[in-house]
């Protein structure tokens, strides 16, 4: 089909234009600070394509991917869960503490930790959902507040209750170590870099989210509520229950963001645990157009850029440049998406109008 190929090519324009624009702006910045962009990009590419860098890219992409999924579930019904950050950090802390406190056979232990994380994440996000339904508090406001509260509660719990008794001269503050039955051994080791096995769980999670949103009745209700809440309500969707349920799901997914680092690297919740993943998730969901496949590509792209940028320090180039690159990618994807969406929509309307005209001519030719 010619028209379909054309539309597919149009969609391809979104990522292509975003990357081209990001490269252009980053080059400009590099030139302004007196660096040669070509050298920078060349060393990024040669470093970023080494096998261990590729493994690292995947490892970095996994939590971003999970965060993107968590945000996208909310976005699909116009719920802005800005609280993914707080949800995942609280979930990681409590799941780590719970995991260290029990002893279970290996697969069950991992499953138990994930379950705790999902329940905690869901609970924390659910607060925002209930506040929205019962008190009309907008979820953007409440989830931002809940992020601060989560940080405070997390620090308090860690310092007073969940902290591993400190050995003399030990400075690090962390929970007790999870026993090996609650670890996930790497899938394989590439050039000295572990390829963590949580990537498999992430893939399953992505498929599950896809099926839930695009193949189930619940997903239909969710998307309908996002597209036209009034029509969804008239069709029998209970908007309050939908908001709470969606926040619970989004929070449960958010709870899993820290798991790849917990199972594959730290084996405890420490103050070194990565922060900001929840906010990166918003960017990844935007760039991935709220679709699990798109989010995967976006997460891998961001993971690669993060990894490849490490080399810039060795070249004497400030790697903060890469933040600008990512920012430009986000902005241009959002803009290009909107532009292409309008073009595709106009094409679709035109095609339908054309078809309608043909059908009407045919009908007129046959006497009624």
């Amino acid at each position, binding site marked *: 089909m010619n028209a379909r190929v054309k539309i597919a090519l149009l969609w391809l324009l979104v990522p292509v234009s975003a990357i081209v624009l990001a490269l252009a702006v980053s080059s400009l910045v590099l030139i302004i600070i007196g660096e040669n962009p070509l050298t920078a990009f060349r060393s990024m590419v040669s470093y970023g394509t080494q096998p261990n860098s590729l493994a690292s890219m995947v490892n970095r992409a996994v939590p971003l991917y999970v965060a993107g999924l968590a945000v996208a579930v909310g976005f699909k019904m116009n719920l802005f869960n800005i609280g993914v950050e707080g949800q995942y950090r609280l979930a990681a802390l409590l799941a780590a503490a719970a995991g260290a406190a029990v002893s279970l056979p290996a697969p069950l232990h991992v499953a138990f930790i994930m379950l705790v994380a999902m329940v905690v994440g869901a609970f924390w996000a659910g607060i925002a959902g209930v506040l929205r339904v019962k008190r009309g508090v907008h979820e953007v406001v409440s989830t931002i507040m809940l992020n601060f509260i989560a940080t405070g509660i997390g620090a308090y719990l860690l310092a007073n209750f969940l902290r591993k008794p400190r050995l003399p001269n030990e400075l690090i503050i962390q929970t007790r170590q999870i026993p090996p039955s609650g670890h996930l051994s790497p899938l394989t080791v590439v050039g000295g870099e572990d390829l963590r096995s949580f990537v498999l769980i992430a893939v399953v999670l992505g498929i599950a989210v896809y099926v839930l949103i695009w193949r189930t009745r619940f997903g239909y209700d969710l998307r309908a509520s996002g597209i036209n809440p009034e029509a969804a309500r008239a*069709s029998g969707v209970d908007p309050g229950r939908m908001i709470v349920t969606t926040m619970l799901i989004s929070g449960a997914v958010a709870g899993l963001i820290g798991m790849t680092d917990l199972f594959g690297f730290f084996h405890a919740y420490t103050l070194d645990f990565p922060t900001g993943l929840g906010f990166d998730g918003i960017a990844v969901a935007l760039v991935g157009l709220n679709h699990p496949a798109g989010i995967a590509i976006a997460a891998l792209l961001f993971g690669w850029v993060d990894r490849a940028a490490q080399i810039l320090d060795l070249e004497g180039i400030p790697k903060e440049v890469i933040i600008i690159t990512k920012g430009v990618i986000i902005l241009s994807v959002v803009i290009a998406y909107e532009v292409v969406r309008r073009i595709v*929509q106009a094409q679709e*309307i035109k*095609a339908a109008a054309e078809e309608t005209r043909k059908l009407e001519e045919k009908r007129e030719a046959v006497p009624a």
Partner: protein
Amino acid sequence: MDERTSAVELKGITKTFPGVVANDDINLTVEPSEIHAVVGENGAGKSTLMKILYGMLRPDGGEISVNGRVAHFRSPKDAIGAGIGMVHQHFMLATNLTVLENVVLGSEPAHAGVIDFDEAADRIRELSRTYGVPLDPERLVEDLAVGERQRVEILKVLYRGARILILDEPTAALVPQEVEELFRNLRELRERGVTIIFISHKLDEVLAIADSITVIRDGHTVATVKPQAVTARQLAELMVGSELPTPETRESTVTDVVVLSVRDLGVRVADRWALRNVTFDIRRGEIVGIAGVEGNGQRELVDALMGLLSPQEGLIRLGDADITRWSPRKRREAGIGYVPEDRHLRGLLLPSPLWENSMLGYQTMVPFSSGPWVNKGGAHKRTDDVIHEYNVITPGPDTSALALSGGNQQKLIVGREMVAEPKVLIAAHPTRGIDVGAQAAVWEHIRRARAAGLALLLISADLEELIGLSDTLHVILRGTLVAKLDPATVTPEVLGSYMTGAREAASA
């Protein structure tokens, strides 16, 4: 054409845009100080043409002259500058402001940044005297009746110096008595030299008020005629290009079995009873019509029946079950169908494909889902059925709803509800905005469903549709049912007098 320069002359106006009926070689000459009606079915291109004349759209080709001078309007501002004013079908008034404030809004007479309200009030009084449009500038718009609000709109454009008025479906929201009042005002304006372009699809009104009538069909100007020279029937045939159907139902199919029963229903909205003491029954095979001026509780009645508003008083029963507290979904599953008043607001998921739209409201039922899963195949098949039975013109079930014309969207909604074979159908304006052929088809489907036992609550602004289809007719006024009339004997005029409260009680 005579020596006088025309007030407005449109030559060969063409406008194409996808999905909508365009203007194709439109020619229209409006003489000064005449009331010139432009008639055509919904979607014939009237609105597009008027938007072009008012500078809201730019034509692809053709020429506009105003008072003999060629005009190129880039925005309504240019059109106002040339003395053209538009009174929109939906009033654009701030109801919490006074008449005075509404009229001057956007062109306030100011001295050093301070609005001179006294000067404005004087000008408004002068205008309403000169043009015979009585209005008190100090009153709040929210206290005004619909007809008075329309006068505010007319005054607004006169205040801005317009001598050529475009009135877009001005009688749509008015009851017959208010229409008479409007016509008196329009004739008055004409006497004072104002030129009026009157857009409508109500032929009797057009014949009563217009000096000349231009008929538009499928984006073309078909004919310009004098009202003395044509009958309503001939005009209709020009408009449609074929015969006009009537909505009459034939022999009664009403049974004794009460399907939906409403008792003393009361709904409070913001400390006010929007609905009170409403009691009626709908039996198997019966169509119960609700007539009323918009905003007299129809919306609250529909919402209460669908479970979207919970009533403070009264009882709703479906068969033997008390459904007063049931959720909308439970009501849907129990067999209550719903054609919403506004298809875009409540009836459709515009960017979604038709098959997803045809499951809206039925997503928990066969064939659209089985258990927790969406049954895409079943939904496609059902959508195909709706498309064929209701003649929805579309490439197929995967097209998105926004690619359909308004009439086809409406047919999809009516079809989706009817094909599901509900026990009760709550239909608000089921044929609003669809062409005459499709309207006749919908009426036919309604009649057939009624014969098969459907209980239908019909809310409509089209009095002929109400009288023609209903077995029982209630009039709603300020949230209560004030009269029960026999559609076999009632006329639109009598119905109108009940709707405004001019005539009271004395049930027929």
